[in-house]
């Protein structure tokens, strides 16, 4: 246990703990406060999380709880929760109540209100921890963090889409690891841009120029399972190891800044199937699926946690698209007890099907054109 007055912790989602760590390290008063990055996701996280969660709540709640309990046991006493739409916005209150009932004592900070981000309110909440914090500094650091997240998203998208084409196996992964390690301690915009150029060049050099024919797969679905690899049993990694090109839309940058503007476009894009929002990311799933179909992807994977209503809303519509546009879509539901072997078997069978389908299409084309 540390002797500091405040120990801040937050739940994991993908690799976003890095920019969050970067931001928090600037917002806090170093004399009184310490940041505790929660333990890496493990079987224990989800076991302990689901033990103390309501029975049929969606799985992100359970992971968050697991992260919080592990951090609290290590001495954390300030917890940060993001919040958002659908059920996310209401997580905070329940989690706080459950943790208090368990006998923990802590402060609780939520970033997003159901209505959206209110930077003044968030500032007020941070002010309680660090009284010296000025609004100007807070806003500047916040904007810097957004830029860092943006770069992280761009870099990870690049890695995801090019890891199949890397020259030596494992090289991009190594670069990615160094990237995350370095991003934690970057302080100025100049450093940030130099850092960005350096790593993009490194990554580009590690990738083959010849981008030959591979199976192209798009991933659509709920945000948490999309962004947190542990909760989707490392689905993306598995796919790239099987030699697939993977495309995914959902990132934090997309959710915070592009989603609102894109809504109208999505409605227009999906107008043959949907005329209204389906709640949370349901409409986006439909629209992105159509986009992937038009771009000639070989197959689509739809992922969601158990009981995710918006994505269940999108499913009958996706099934119709699958029938009408003749595109294979596989649906994965993740819960606290999903076994990796089951997912892998289904994934392999799905891939085999797509390879056969692709060959058949090629053969047909050859016959047509002689």
């Amino acid at each position, binding site marked *: 246990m540390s002797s500091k007055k405040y120990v801040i912790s937050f739940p994991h989602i993908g690799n976003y703990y890095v920019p969050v760590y970067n931001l928090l390290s600037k917002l806090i008063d170093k004399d009184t406060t310490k940041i505790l990055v929660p333990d890496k996701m493990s079987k224990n996280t989800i076991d302990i999380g689901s033990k103390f969660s*309501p*029975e*049929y*709540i*969606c799985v992100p709640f359970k992971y968050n709880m697991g992260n919080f309990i592990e951090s609290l046991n290590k001495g954390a006493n300030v917890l940060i929760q993001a919040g958002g739409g*659908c*059920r996310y*916005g*209401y*997580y*905070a*209150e*329940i989690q706080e*109540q*459950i943790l208090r*009932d368990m006998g923990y004592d802590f402060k609780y900070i939520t970033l997003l209100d*159901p*209505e959206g981000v209110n930077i003044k309110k968030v500032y007020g909440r941070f002010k309680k921890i660090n009284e010296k914090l000025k609004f100007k500094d807070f806003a500047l650091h916040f904007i810097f963090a957004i830029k860092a997240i943006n770069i992280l998203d761009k870099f990870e998208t690049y890695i995801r889409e090019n890891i199949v084409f890397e020259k030596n196996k494992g090289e991009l992964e190594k670069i990615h690891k160094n990237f995350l390690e370095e991003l934690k301690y970057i302080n100025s915009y100049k450093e940030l841009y130099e850092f960005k150029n350096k790593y993009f060049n490194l990554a580009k050099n590690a990738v083959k120029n010849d981008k030959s024919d591979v199976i192209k797969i798009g991933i659509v679905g709920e945000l948490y399972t999309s962004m947190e690899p542990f909760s989707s049993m490392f689905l993306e990694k598995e796919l790239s190891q099987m030699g697939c090109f993977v495309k995914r839309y959902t990132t934090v940058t997309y959710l915070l800044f592009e989603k609102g503007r894109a809504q109208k476009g999505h409605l227009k894009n999906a107008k043959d*199937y*949907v*005329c*209204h*929002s*389906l*709640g*949370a990311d*349901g409409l986006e799933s439909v629209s992105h699926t159509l986009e992937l179909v038009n771009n000639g992807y070989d197959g689509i994977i739809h992922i969601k946690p*158990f*009981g995710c*209503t*918006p994505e*269940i*809303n*999108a*499913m*009958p*519509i996706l099934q*119709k698209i699958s029938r009408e546009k003749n595109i294979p879509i596989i649906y994965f*539901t993740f819960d606290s007890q999903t076994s990796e072997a089951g997912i892998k078997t289904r994934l392999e069978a799905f891939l085999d099907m797509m390879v056969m389908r692709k060959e058949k299409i090629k053969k047909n084309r050859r016959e047509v054109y002689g």
Partner: protein
Amino acid sequence: MKIGIPKALCYFEYAEMFKCFFKELGIEVVLSNDTDKKMLQNGIYASIDEECLASKIFLGHVKDLISRKESENIDYIVIPRLCTFKNNQTMCVKFYALYDICCNIFDSKFLILNVDYNKGENELKAFINLGKKLNKGSYETTISYFKAKRMQKNYEIDKLNNQLKKLNESKNLKILIVAHSYVYNDKYLGFTIKDYFEKLGVDIFYADINSSIYKNEEMKMRYKNISKSIYWKQNIKLLNGVCEYLDKVDGIIYFSVFPCGTDSLVNELCIRKVKNVPSMNIILDEEDGMAGIYTRLESFTDILEKVKK
């Protein structure tokens, strides 16, 4: 002209209103039959296996109307799409998509009643738009809307007065049922339980029917005692009811259907916060063996009786 309304989900919130509104416009209304086993099976067949039981039943009702379309000359089926309301209140996201889901899985003519305050579609506008699609002028529909609204209000006040009267006179064991209107009003889900309690000689009251229908800020804001950040309209109403009846009942039963998104969180919080009244959480699923539930209800009443003595 004839329109069909599925008797499930949001129907129960607007029951009297629909009846009166369409009567005023001179449109005949056909309701779907009461839920039975076959209808549930049809609904399950039409829906994704992870959907909540209430929405499976809803699809069963829509299917029932579609099967009667030819024989009874039903022109349209009305599907309400309730999203956002005043004061940042919203419905469960299931309601957002009902219309689009029905359009995609069934081959029939549907009409939408789209209430979405955040997008500028208030209730009146929604009804006017619905009227336009039925070839009725906006003046005519506006008048019918206000008449219907008044009818609905009177009906709700009657229901509330009856319940309060029963509560004051009752000498039996009193149990508060915290359940959505589409759960306790459904013949298949709620009525079996209601009948069973009648047999046991227990008086039941519904949290859904409470004084928050009046224009009274204090009564509308009671839910804040339990939850501060809640934004689901129906659950707010239920929490208001819990706060109102809390001191007057012997026990609380939380009824929800599997896997209800909003109840999974709100009921958990409610159970944790309301501690001085014995409570029980019952989750209904599509397996229809009622023996297990009856046993739990009976033992719960036995315990309450002992506590009372």
